[in-house]
């Protein structure tokens, strides 16, 4: 048994989600190879070689792989996959985009978003916004899997010394091309890997009012998130969305401000270690999962909370 893990990287280093996916592969067992695909990403390949438990790094470098175009990356995965028993990617926007395309080309029914490994062919995955956990067994020769990052504790980023092997990149498909990217620059930690997350909901009332949460997030070095309702209302960008169809997070502290706690939101944060809810409606479902709740006006409570945190 050998696992191939598609790395997520920025050209220089590997993202933490890669370490979670390697951890999922470790649960499956057998050797672990990591595929680093990109352009001028030799440093990321070297970083992947340091990851604990990795036996080999495959490095594909080409302009055709520069922008993670799914057509090209899927073709690369397919060219390598038949040597492997399992092909994994972290269940991130990139993994979710690319891996099903590769799975279909391999005539494999992908297993999405696994949170546990039962055996080499049997996995646990949430369905219905996490209201049920299904144990599924695959009959395909190659298992193609995306792993939910919060389901697997990251392996160490160092300690390994795997050889790096160059693999032939695919030709550009010519089907799609990259036009541009607007990535919001933020000094805050990344939402899915932050130790603390401060999220706002429709109770904030407007996008401007999200500024109220900034001092709190600053004080706790927290990432900022939002409910689907707040995204729907246009208060904040979509990539802040925590929930079934947004990001799945499991920080040490999750502070939900003005969030009622719809099923689909709870699906994205209920595995947080400590949940704090601030809401004026004492019947709000968020209180049914919160460890600590304050019933009150968030416009008063949040500044008070910041003041309290400033006291040593």
């Amino acid at each position: 048994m050998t696992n191939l893990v598609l790395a997520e990287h920025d050209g220089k280093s590997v993202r933490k989600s890669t370490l979670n996916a390697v951890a999922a592969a470790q649960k499956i067992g057998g050797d672990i190879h990591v595929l680093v695909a990109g352009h001028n990403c030799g440093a990321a390949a070297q970083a992947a070689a340091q990851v604990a438990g990795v036996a080999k790094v495959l490095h594909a470098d080409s302009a055709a792989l520069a922008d993670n175009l799914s057509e090209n990356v899927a073709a690369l995965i397919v060219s390598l996959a038949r040597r492997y028993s399992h092909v994994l990617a972290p269940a991130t926007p990139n993994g979710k985009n690319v891996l099903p395309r590769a799975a279909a080309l391999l005539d494999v029914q992908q297993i999405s978003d696994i949170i546990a490994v039962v055996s080499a062919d049997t996995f646990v995955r949430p369905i219905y916004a996490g209201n049920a956990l299904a144990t599924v067994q695959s009959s395909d020769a190659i298992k193609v899997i995306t792993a939910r990052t919060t389901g697997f504790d990251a392996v160490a980023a160092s300690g390994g010394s795997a050889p790096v092997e160059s693999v032939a990149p695919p030709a550009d498909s010519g089907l799609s091309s990259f036009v541009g990217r607007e990535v919001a620059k933020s000094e805050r930690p990344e939402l899915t890997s932050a130790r603390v997350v401060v999220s706002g909901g429709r109770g904030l009332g407007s996008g401007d009012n999200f500024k109220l949460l900034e001092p709190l997030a600053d004080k706790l070095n927290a990432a900022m998130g939002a409910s689907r309702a707040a995204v729907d209302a246009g208060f904040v960008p979509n990539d802040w969305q925590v929930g079934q169809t947004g990001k799945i997070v499991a920080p040490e502290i999750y502070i939900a401000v003005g969030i009622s706690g719809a099923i689909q939101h709870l699906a994205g944060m209920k595995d947080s270690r400590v949940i704090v809810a601030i809401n004026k409606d004492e019947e709000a479902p968020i209180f049914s999962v919160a460890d600590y709740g304050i019933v009150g006006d968030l416009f008063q409570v949040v500044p008070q909370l910041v003041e309290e945190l400033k006291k040593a």
Partner: protein
Amino acid sequence: MKILVSVKRVVDYNVKVRVKADGTGVETTNVKMSMNPFDEIAVEEAVRLKEASVATEIVVVSCGVQACQETLRTALAIGADRAILVETDAELQPLAVAKLLKAVCAKENPQIAILGKQAIDDDANQTGQMLAALLGWPQATFASKVLVADGKAQVTREIDGGLETLSLKLPAVVTTDLRLNEPRYVTLPNIMKAKKKPLEVLKPDALGVDVAPRLKTLKAVEPAKRKAGVKVPDAAVLVDKLRNEAKVL
């Protein structure tokens, strides 16, 4: 230009689903069913492209049981022109649905196939990508903006940290994200009109597709419930609890 949209009949998003006592799955009898919300966005986007005179015809497809006809009628009421039901009682997994849709695309020759990014029942997020792969078409998943001109689709996508824009040669597959549009409410006159629109029923066999599942669900269980905690009177007590009880500060 013809657009193909696929829609899935799922347990309504407001329903609190329950796991069956025998652990074989989720209770779906006597439960309100609706169109998957992301598919509603897909239908709406197609209708807007038609209203903008980019598209000339919208074909809506659903794969599943006979009752999916209701879901198709809803799509027709939003503004699709005609419907195709690939009818089967078999359990359909994303790869099988992608194969069925590929066969329908081969008959219909659409220039764009629009799908929801994810169904809220199995949460797989696969079918659009798989359809694009099987057809050899480019794909743009998680779309928040679609512009069609000169044989190309320029699609803005939701990615980690922001947005990216791709240019796709047509024909192409697009999957919808939340902010692409806000679907319209269907009006009674349009519901009445939808009843008269054509709805064709096909069988998987006739399309030459083997829909046998590759994944076997061994069991379904409810996740461990999180216990409700305590309400605290104010911020001072909260900080004290976080420091000294939960010890997370």
